[in-house]
Structures are given as C-alpha cells and as structure tokens.
C-alpha cells in the first residue's frame, strides 16, 4: 500500500553506479566535489586557512560532531533519529564537572559518564521500540529532559583544571602527525563503522529496516533489538563525546555542546543519507562532516558572527534535504509527465 502514485515507477537501489554521466550525479560524489571546491575557495580567500596548523585545529574542533555522526548515520539509515545527542553530551559534561568537583578520580568519572550516556540511549530506545513512539518526538523530549538534568547536576557553574595528561589526550596531536588524538580515534571508528555498515549482515539489516521495516521483520531480522542497540550506541558515543569536549575546552558546563545535534544531522544528510532511511554511504557522511567543518572554520577565520554560522548550518540542512527531492521530482517528470 504505497501512499504515492509514483510507486509504480521503480527506484534504483542506492549506491548503485549508473554508468556514464549519471555516476557524477551521485550525491556523495557531488558533496566530495563541493568539499574540494570549498577547500580551494578557502585557500584562495583567506590566508590562514590552508595551513597545517589551521587544518589540524579545524579537524580537532570537529571531533565530537564527527564521532556522534558515526552513530547517527546508522540510526538514520535505519529510519530513526536521535536529537538528544547534544544534551547527552551536556549531561555528560555536567556530571564530569560535578564529580570532579566532588573529588572523584577522573579514571572513575569517565567510565561512569559513559554508562550514564548508555542509559540515556537506552531510555530513548525503549520509548521508541517498546511503546512504538516516533523517535523524532521521543528525542525532542529527551533533548529537553537531559539538558535539564545537566543543569540540575551542575547549575550554571563551570568546573575546570582537569589533569594535564588527560587534557593533552583531547588536545594534542598524535606524535609525528598533525592529527589530534580524537580525530585519530574518529578515523579508526569510521573505518569500523564503514565496514559494519557496508559489509556486514548487521549493516544490511539496517538498510533493510530503513527501506522496508515490515519486510525486514518478515525476513527474521530482529528489528526492535537492533534499533534499541542503535539508540544505546548513540547515547554512549554522545557521552564519550562529552568527555572529549570537556577535556578539550578544559571546562565542564551544563550548556556544553548546545545545538550541535543540528550540525551532526546536517553532516549526515549532507552526506547523502536519506532521512527516510534505507539509503546512504558512510563515505558520503565523512565528506559531509568535513564540509561542515571547513565551512565552520572558514566562517570563524573571517570573524563571521555565530548567528550567521547557525544560519549557514540551517541552510545546509534544508538544502541537503531538498536537493535530492527536487532531483527525484525532475527525474520523474522526465519519465512520466504530469503524474
């Protein structure tokens, strides 16, 4: 019972090469091209941009968004979304602050906040899978809830002075390279996520669930369990990103990372993952993440106000949702006029 009359017109599976010109119209290729264009334009336009130092900084500044984007990609491929990630990050940061203030050892704090993130994700997941609520609504709710908890935990205090050896793990480069540790971690995790998503049975299940949940369930795929796992993963990664964020800025605050869920989702959608699920590549998402990072960096270098940065993120989000739709409509018009 497909709700659109266009359902008689078969769609091509995602990621399949069209051959000829069509191949260059693939979204992830397009984004990569755009990425290169922005890079070149940036190098020409601002002096400080194309330096190793700046790029290394830009990458590091992207760390949390990039990490969260990995888990978010899997969720969106499975046609779910987690908007509470930034709040989990904030809650994680606030907890670190409170516990550190309370004299806990950092070695105990880090595992604890990661477990709290896991529980946050579990709550999202249970609400979605057990009660059958839409994840968009559930995680808007927990977005407010978890951020509220963060304020309960730490108020509007800021806690600082974390142990130098931990801070340096969040800030320093891997020796002999210009790559900050969190980015190196991201690279490793990205490879693993790429393999999981595109080469394992688990990844196949995610695409099947996102494209046609009922058929996936009929094929014996444990739809609910998998979704639950994805939410737990998302919460866990967000809490860990909170650790990185806190150490990197050397400051634990309840409002840390406010609003970065939008940057994450913009990166994922910009990377060509279909918000309706079932389509997308991790390669595209990485290009999307880098593109967002470069743009943010360029705006910062040129002293553009943060409001404008937010406008740019918003526009990118809309463009990345809109463009594929428009392309699909144009394609359909050409095939079957005036449906």
């Amino acid at each position, binding site marked *: 019972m497909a*709700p659109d009359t266009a359902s008689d017109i078969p769609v091509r599976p995602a990621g399949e090469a069209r051959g000829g010109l069509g191949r260059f119209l693939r979204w992830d290729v397009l984004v990569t091209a755009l990425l290169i264009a922005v890079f070149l334009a940036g190098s020409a336009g601002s002096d400080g941009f194309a330096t190793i130092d700046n790029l290394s900084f830009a990458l590091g500044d992207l760390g949390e968004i990039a990490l969260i984007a990995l888990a978010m990609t899997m969720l969106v491929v499975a046609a779910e979304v987690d908007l509470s990630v930034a709040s989990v990050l904030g809650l994680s940061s606030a907890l670190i602050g409170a516990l550190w203030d309370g004299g806990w050892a950092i070695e105990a704090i880090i595992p604890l906040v990661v477990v709290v993130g896991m529980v946050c994700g579990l709550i999202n997941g249970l609400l979605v899978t057990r009660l059958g609520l839409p994840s968009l609504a559930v995680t808007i709710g927990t977005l407010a809830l978890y951020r509220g908890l963060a304020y309960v935990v730490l108020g509007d205090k800021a806690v600082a002075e974390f142990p130098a050896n931990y801070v340096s793990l969040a800030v320093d480069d891997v020796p002999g390279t210009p790559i900050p540790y969190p980015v190196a971690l991201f690279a490793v995790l990205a490879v693993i996520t790429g393999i999981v998503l595109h080469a394992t049975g688990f990844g196949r299940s995610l695409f099947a669930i996102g494209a046609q949940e009922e058929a996936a369930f009929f094929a014996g795929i444990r739809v609910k369990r998998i979704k639950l796992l994805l939410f737990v993963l998302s919460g866990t990664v967000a809490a860990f990103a909170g650790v990185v964020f806190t150490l990197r800025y050397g400051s634990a605050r309840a409002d840390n990372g406010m609003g970065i869920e939008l940057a994450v989702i913009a990166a994922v959608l910009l990377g060509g993952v279909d918000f309706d699920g079932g389509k997308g590549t991790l390669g595209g998402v990485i290009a999307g993440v880098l593109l967002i990072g470069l743009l943010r960096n360029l705006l910062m270098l040129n002293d553009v106000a943060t409001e404008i940065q937010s406008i740019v993120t918003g526009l990118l989000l809309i463009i990345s949702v809109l463009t594929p739709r428009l392309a699909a409509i144009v394609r359909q018009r050409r095939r079957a006029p005036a449906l």
Partner: protein
Amino acid sequence: MSETGASRPIIALKDVTKSFGAVSALRGVSLELYAGEAHALAGENGAGKSTLVKTLAGVHRPDSGTVLLHGEPVVFHGPADAQAAGVAVIYQEPTLFPDLSVAENIFMGRQPRAGLGRIDRRAMRAETAALFQRLGVGLAPDQPARGLSIADQQLVEIAKALSRDARVLIMDEPTAALSGNEVDRLFGVVEALRAQGCAVLFISHRLDEIFRLCQRVTTLRDGAWIASEPVEGLTHDDLIRRMVGRELDALYPKQDTTPGEVALKVERLTREGVFTDVSFEVRRGEIAALAGLVGAGRSEVARAIFGIDRFDAGKVTVNGRELPPGSPTAAMGAGLALVPEDRRQQGLVMDMSIERNIGLTGLAALRRGPVISRAAERDRARDWALKLRLKFARLNDGVGVLSGGNQQKVVLAKWLAIGPSVLIVDEPTRGIDVGTKAEVHRLLSELAGQGMAVLMISSDLPEVLGMADRVLVMHEGRITAEIPRERATEESVMAAATGRAAA
C-alpha cells in the same frame, strides 16, 4: 467484429513499442478494445502485459506507435488524461493510502461535495457501502486501509475502478488473490458493465477465468504480439502454446510420498476475534493445503505460527521444539519459513537489488569472518534465479523493475534458499504464469519428496486440489474440515469453506 457490432474500437494501440533501458517491454504491439467486449491479455511473466496496461492508462508514453481513442490518435500526458477519457484501471499492485479509510481511498481526488465545498462523508459512505454490496465485500467503509489483506486491498481497488463511470475497464490480475466466491461476484459485475457497453481488458494467469469471462484474447510473448483471436474454439493448450511457444508438462506434478514424522504441530491456537482453536499437524514429506474464503483467517494463522503476530492461546511446535511466541527469528532458527502474501510490503525490500533481497534471509550463512561475502551472496542468488527461471537483466538491478510474477519468484527464492524443514507458503503462485506455476509446483512436490513439510495457503482451488495431500478448510476463523486427497473435490472443499458442511 464484436458482439454488439460496433465497428470502431473505443480505444486501441497501434504498433506500440516501449523500452526500459536495454529491456524492450513492448515491440510493435497492437490491440483493439470494443464496446461490450471482454478482451483477455495473456502472456508469461515479463511478457509486457502490465506495461501495455500502463500505456493505456497514461502512466507510460509509448516510445513509438499511437494510442487511438475512438479512432483518433491521442496522447495521454498522465493517468488523469486517461481517466478523463473514461479509462479506469485496476493495477496489478494495490496502491492504497494506508492512513485513509476505505471509502476515502475509493473517492480519492473526486470526493462528493456537500454545501460550502465540504466533503460529503455520508454520501461517500453510502456509495461505498452500495459498491461493496454489489461486489459482496464484507468491509466497512470507515475501516482504515492499513492492515487489509492483499485480497481485500484488491477488492477495494476493484470498487475504486467500478465507482468511476468507466467506458473502458482495465484489470491487471484483479483475481490473483481472490477465491472462487469473490471472483464470481466480480465477474457478475463485469458482465453487467459489459452489457451496458463497457469495453473490458482482463489479465489473469488463471486460464479458466479467461475462458469464462472473455470473448477475445491477445497473446504477448517477450513483448511481441503473437495473436489476437476469439476465445471460442481455442483450447487451454492452444493458449499455453501461444504464450510459452512450446508444449507444457503437467501443471500439477504431484509426487506420491509417504508422510514421515510430524514436523509442524499447531495446538488450539487462538487469537481473539481472528481465529479460534486452530489445531493441525503437518508431517514431513506432506503438502497440506489451508483452503477457505478470503477473510477466513488463513494468512492470520500463518502469521501467528511464524511469530509475526502474537496469539492469545495455544502452542506451536516445530520438529518437537516449542516456538516462543512473537519471534520470526526463533521460528527461522527452528527450521520454519514463511512466504508471505504481500510481496511489496512483506516479501521484498523494494529498494534493494535482487541478490540482496535473496540474501536477506541468509545474512548469517553468507558471512565469511565478520563480513558478508559478495561472491557467496551472488552465487546464492544466481542459483535460485536459474532454478526458478527468473527473468532479469542483472542480479544487482532493483527488484522494483521486475514484473509482478518475477518479483514473486524472488520472494520464493529468498525463502527456499534457507533450506527450511517446514515451509509455509501464502499464495505461492499469486501472479505467476502457467509455465512457472508448473515449475513452482514441481519444486514444492520435490521438496516435499525430500522430506520437507509444506503448508500451502491458496485461493486457487485447482491448485489446492492438484497439489495437496490433505486439505484443511477454514471458515470464519475455525478449521471446519480436514479432507484427504482422495476425497477432496471442488464441492467438498467449497461446502466446508462456506460453512455448509460439518467436519
């Protein structure tokens, strides 16, 4: 030429060709539909029937050739143009809006109006009820379309087409999921329309129906026009030869087997308001059929056994192991497979390729280390594509571009590939052509011969009688009869199915 003597066809195709990339779906096909005549379109899966239908419906525009309306060339720019010209179409795959009521679906886009432009719901409901009465459909107009069985969806589509004052009625396999009663009603309505001067185009893989309903038949093979001729004087074999281009072996090649131990045991299964106290066994080597009218609860029982739906009471045992309720994964682990009735929603992931769909049931089996072996996946798909004579261009094409019958083959392949010990098939040959039907029957028979237990749900009575060792008949959610092969006849099964006989 036609019975009513109208000399000019209402609508016609002349030398129409249509290609999709490298596939030529229609090559120089001509067809004329006359007022008061029911015209059958025959051909194997992928012969181009649905493509022809969509050309008449304005969904596709021919690459070359013309559509003629009352002898004048026309160009339909979309389905709206065709509808305006009086063409009503029942497509092969129902496309209802799941969140709208049945009545809203039927009147989509042309709702009756009351004052101030409001939708006149009462009129809509009344008209829907009247239509259902005519068709003998037991659905409530206010019922949402979500959750309707394929057969009911098809009935709603039929009502939708009939509710338009059509001068040309095109039906692409409207009966594929219907059982005898509904088909009789449908044919009654179509006969009445025909008597009023409507032109009818009818597609079905059940040849009997063509002979019953139609006066002329056009045959397509691989997109090419083979013949247009009167049905009278034609035999089944003639028609099959035109479609297939060769003689066909037995349609029901049932091997005799001696049933082994019990493989599937269902005890007192009950789901409130759906089915009650259903108990039966299927033994290894045996094909048991679950017969009954549309709505008797057959598919629902199958879904509960496989763990799709939960049940309120009872027990399912596979090879001596009791299945936990509500877990298809556990059911598969115990050796159970279910070929579901709705291929587009339940059977296939339409956006995925042929090979990935076939691989989806075997993600664990296709693993080499942590990753899926593409080669193993492709081999599995190719193997079954050949066995089932799937018509495809490339295995990594999306299943969406396959013809309806070929999609059904992919669903079968996907489930047979796991090598189940108990196979439940819900309308296994829905939309499959005669040639392949025979293949599927041979395959089921062979698999049973090798010790598989098969539970077959089918609305096609000849198929039930031809293939089953034992026929279980359901009526209104209960099993009303169990009839062994020797005593299974059309009368005995229909009597039980309509509740006229006690077990």
